[in-house]
């Protein structure tokens, strides 16, 4: 398995432009396939584009039948959302930022121990980490709610920080371990022969080498924490509510709300969309690591 894993290493392959193959991409058949690709791509993207358009409409245009395709854009909804979302945004930034930082601080030593200096029963430990990911959140929400209530930490942003850290830690350990395993043994040998200690090796030899992997891991943790809704819904009220809660709060039972809702959805999704677009290759690499090792 090991040798196969090394030869079929995707890290170098992902994102590499495919070598042009002669009988593809040309001719009528190739043209049709390219056209099909674009139709499907635009189809998948369309709901997002429509949401972005609706964010710049007024409420009557947003909920018109037939739909309004051409209109004079307004910034009213965006302004209102920016004005109302301050607390929610602050909470989301704390919950996402601090939990991701904690995940990295805990995952780097753990995955180092599992990859480079394997402990006995490494696979058991890994299995434990991944099995917590399979534990349905609903199965632990009641005790967490009751315990948080007794500790007086309901509606407290630090409760979400702890839970988001636990939510992302398994996947981070799993991914980081794969990245550490990619480091060639000669590098460690050389560091050890030069008399570098553990901390020194970790800091000046290993960290620079896994930095891209670390970035990919952090990005995935940020995405999951930023988008998390279930804990936020059940464990927060007014003080610690996060951005997903803000989106649902723009829905009202009376009156029209679609333009406001779209503006909130657009602004809430924008950070992750941009980060994901910029870091596509790292994202793919991080996610596909587990398929190889």
């Amino acid at each position, binding site marked *: 398995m*090991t040798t196969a894993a090394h030869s*079929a290493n995707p890290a170098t*392959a992902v994102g*590499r432009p495919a070598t042009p193959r002669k009988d*593809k991409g040309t001719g009528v058949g190739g043209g049709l396939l390219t056209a099909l690709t*674009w139709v*499907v791509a*635009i189809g*998948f993207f369309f*709901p*997002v584009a*429509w949401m972005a358009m609706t964010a710049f409409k007024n409420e009557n245009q947003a*909920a018109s*039948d037939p739909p309004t395709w051409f209109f004079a854009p307004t910034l009213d909804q965006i302004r209102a959302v920016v004005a109302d979302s301050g607390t929610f945004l602050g909470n989301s930034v704390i919950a996402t930022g601090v939990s991701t930082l904690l995940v990295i601080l805990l995952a780097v*030593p*753990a995955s180092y*121990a*599992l*990859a*480079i200096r*394997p*402990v*006995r029963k490494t696979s058991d*430990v890994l299995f*434990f980490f991944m*099995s917590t990911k399979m534990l*349905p959140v*609903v*199965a*632990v*929400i*009641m*005790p967490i709610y*009751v*315990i948080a209530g007794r500790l007086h930490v309901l509606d407290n942003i630090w409760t979400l920080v702890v839970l988001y*850290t636990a939510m992302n830690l398994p996947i981070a350990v799993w991914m980081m371990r794969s990245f550490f395993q990619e480091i060639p*043994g000669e590098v*460690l040998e050389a560091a*050890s*022969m030069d008399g570098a200690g553990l901390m020194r090796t970790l800091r000046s030899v290993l960290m620079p080498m896994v930095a891209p992997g670390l970035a990919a891991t952090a990005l995935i943790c940020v*995405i999951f924490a930023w988008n998390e*809704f279930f804990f936020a*819904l*059940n464990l927060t009220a007014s003080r610690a509510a996060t951005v997903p809660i803000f989106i*649902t709060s723009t829905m009202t039972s009376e009156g029209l709300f*679609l333009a406001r*809702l*779209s503006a909130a*959805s657009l602004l809430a*999704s924008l950070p*992750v*969309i941009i980060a*994901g*677009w910029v870091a*596509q290759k790292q*994202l793919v690499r991080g*996610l*596909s690591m*587990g*398929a190889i090792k």
Partner: protein
Amino acid sequence: MTTLVERHNAAQGRRSEPDVAAVRAEAWRRRAPLLPALIFMVIVTQVPFLVTIWYSMRSWNLLRPDGDRFVGLQNYVDIFADSVFRGAALNSVLITLSCVLVAMLIGIGLALLLDRPFRGRGVARTLLITPFLIMPVAGSMIWAVSMLNPTYGLVNWAIGLVGIDPVDWTSTYPVLSIVIALVWQWTPFMMLLVLAGLQAQPKDVLEAAQVDGAGWGRTFVSITLPQLRRYIELGVLLGAIYVVNTFDQIYLMTAGGPGTASANLPFYIYQRAFLGFDIGQAAAMGVVVVIATIIVATFALRLIFRSFEQKD
């Protein structure tokens, strides 16, 4: 991995033979970096689960002040007699299976389309991954309101153009509506994984197959598909882990309705716990879900490991 470890060990083995105490100290040095993460996970995930098991054997409804007494397995008997629970379990299976399978099939198709060189390929890929990056709450709202709303939704407008009467999607076909939103969100994930697999294919093998006169179909079935197998399995496993816990789409698109027609287990447990305040029964359902997940996951993992063994 083994080679790396062996080399590392060899590097250390050049020192003089250590005694037992040193071996033990070394074992602890190896283990130490692992402990903070391990202890944190045990406290935050395992302790609440043990408490859930304890709750599941109590009759505890926050609305009834006399409650909170030990009832043994009575809650388990009650939930299996509860037809809504069985319906929610069925919906969980239905939603997870259909979403993962459909998303994977479309994902494979899209990955194959994107593996061809054409101008603007990067842009097409960027457009295609966007649904995966959208906040699920926002994605659910786009589908529930902008797309599937009975009066001003775009889907009804589009089918109206070809003369089909408007449909109240989330009331008439609630499970289908949820699956549509989920497939939209998860297809890009499957596509990315399969694409990574396609691009990791050794090109010389493909060329050799072409030289030998193997057609596209033959090459796909006997070379590409076996190569993609691990990527597909990983996608199905990770996808299933997340989709089985689907809550956002159901809460926001149908609220489990009409009635309880589209509730899955996470949503029904949420209802019993936070709207019905029935801690005991909700906990018992949680335990059942965990046991079912363990059975399915073990089965899935074993399947995957078996395919590894066959391959090697």
